[in-house]
């Protein structure tokens, strides 16, 4: 018997799969955000009692002051594209049937922002600074981040 593999026919791979899936709770701040989104169709930010900034997405705590945020405020209806990408590949690494515009949107007076798919505009027409508004997918049994999208304002 040889001590090294010398032929490609000797190469072996063994498959393995973990066989689990996951269920993630939305958490204290996520509960509030997604219930507001589902019940009232608007975005809310949490307010830091120390630094006064409004955080989007809302959070249980201020990541800088490290204090609890319990106050929530609605976010303005129109935001602007801070950056965007035209995505061509799916999570399975195959070409998407139609390229997607993924946009990160910020709102005046709000720290942070949100990601969503931007529709209703040709990819080559999208610019940083474009005003957009929320286009919410509805009718899902559970509200989800995937419901959040944008259209030009």
């Amino acid at each position, binding site marked *: 018997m040889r001590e090294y*593999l010398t032929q490609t026919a000797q*190469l072996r791979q063994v498959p393995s799969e973990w066989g689990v899936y996951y269920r993630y709770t939305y958490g204290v701040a996520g509960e509030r955000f997604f219930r507001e989104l589902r019940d009232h169709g608007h975005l809310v930010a949490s307010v830091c009692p120390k630094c006064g900034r409004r955080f989007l997405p809302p959070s249980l705590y201020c990541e800088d002051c490290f204090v609890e945020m319990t106050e929530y405020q609605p976010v303005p209806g129109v935001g602007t594209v801070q950056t965007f990408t*035209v995505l061509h590949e799916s*999570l*399975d690494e195959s070409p998407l049937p139609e390229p*997607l515009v*993924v946009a990160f949107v910020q709102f005046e007076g709000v720290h942070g922002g949100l990601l969503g798919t931007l529709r209703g505009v040709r990819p080559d027409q999208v610019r940083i600074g474009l005003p957009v508004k929320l286009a919410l997918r509805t009718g899902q049994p559970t509200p989800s981040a*995937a419901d959040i999208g944008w259209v030009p304002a």
Partner: protein
Amino acid sequence: MSGEVAIVGAGYTPLRAVSPGQSFREMVFEAAVRAYEDAGITPREIDSVIALGEDYREGTCITDEYVPDQLGAVQKPVQTVTGDGLQALATAWMLLNSGVADIVLLEGHSKASNMLHPAQIEAMALDPVFVRPHAWHPLFLGGLEMRRYLQDTGTTTAQAARVAAKNKRNALRNPLAAYPARVTPEQVLASRPIAEPLTELAVAPPADGAFVFIVANAAGQKRCTGRPVMVDGIGWSSDTCNIHTRDWSRAAYAEQAAARAYRMAGITRPAEEVDFAEVNDAYTYKELQHLEALGLAPRGQGAALADQGLFDPDGRLPVNVSGGCLGCGNLHDVSAFCSLYEVVLQVRGQAGERQLPRAKRGLVCSWRGVPTATGGVAILSGR
């Protein structure tokens, strides 16, 4: 805080896109044999072992289990850093200055080719509530960040593409590199778009391979015969993990890590005090963004300096003469070890045909990849 810590031994396996002839254990064994040979010691001399590992990439839950045997480290103090190579080096530095070890072994390997769905794996790092449900390919983050970086600095996509052309060409002189090539910036721009402005050739492809280092304090160095490469400074830092509140165009983690490493190394004018740098270039623009964060180029001037040839192998501050991630292959957290290995060779004068004439002091800058904002900076020099 000034303990004398040096790399006294280094071992590798050549990096390749696939590595079907060896198990990861056999790969690591090969690198370890080289590292021990280089350091002139046996496993008996090792006081402590630090491995790199992230379970989802390894496909094994608790990868720490499978660390000791192929290193000859059975029944030794062994631990796994779920971070990058410089965080492992920093951990070694701390152990060597705490009195619990004089000689520490570092190990990192990549078997990225064994993941059947790497994008699906990397997507598992996204916030499961606010981000992941969109089910986007995780490179969308690179695209978003690149667009904002280009906008804020006035860098063009063509300038960014030159980084890939340079690094892949540098890799032609590195026998370890998995992806050496002659490509033009135009080819990079014209390659398949993935997350615009990122195209296929602007993204470092994954590779398999292993590195092992032996690191020692002053007492430990006396027991080793390997030529020491001193760790003059090391820093690591994390910006927020919250992609929503991050500054998209700056690499804040690298600024913070560099400040710490420079302070430790007594560096005040990095662009003049560092001879060469190995800087994370998982995507083309990251090299430029990192160079600016490190103070090796003024903010927004990375591309302009690159255009002048400053970062070419024959420039004043060669960057990624190894080929970087774009030329060697992306080993994720282990890429920092690939960079470290290049610095060891260069300052020892062992880099063969790519040896730089002036390589007394080198810098490594690492980044853990999307969606993280974590990275490190190390300054190393010959004695």
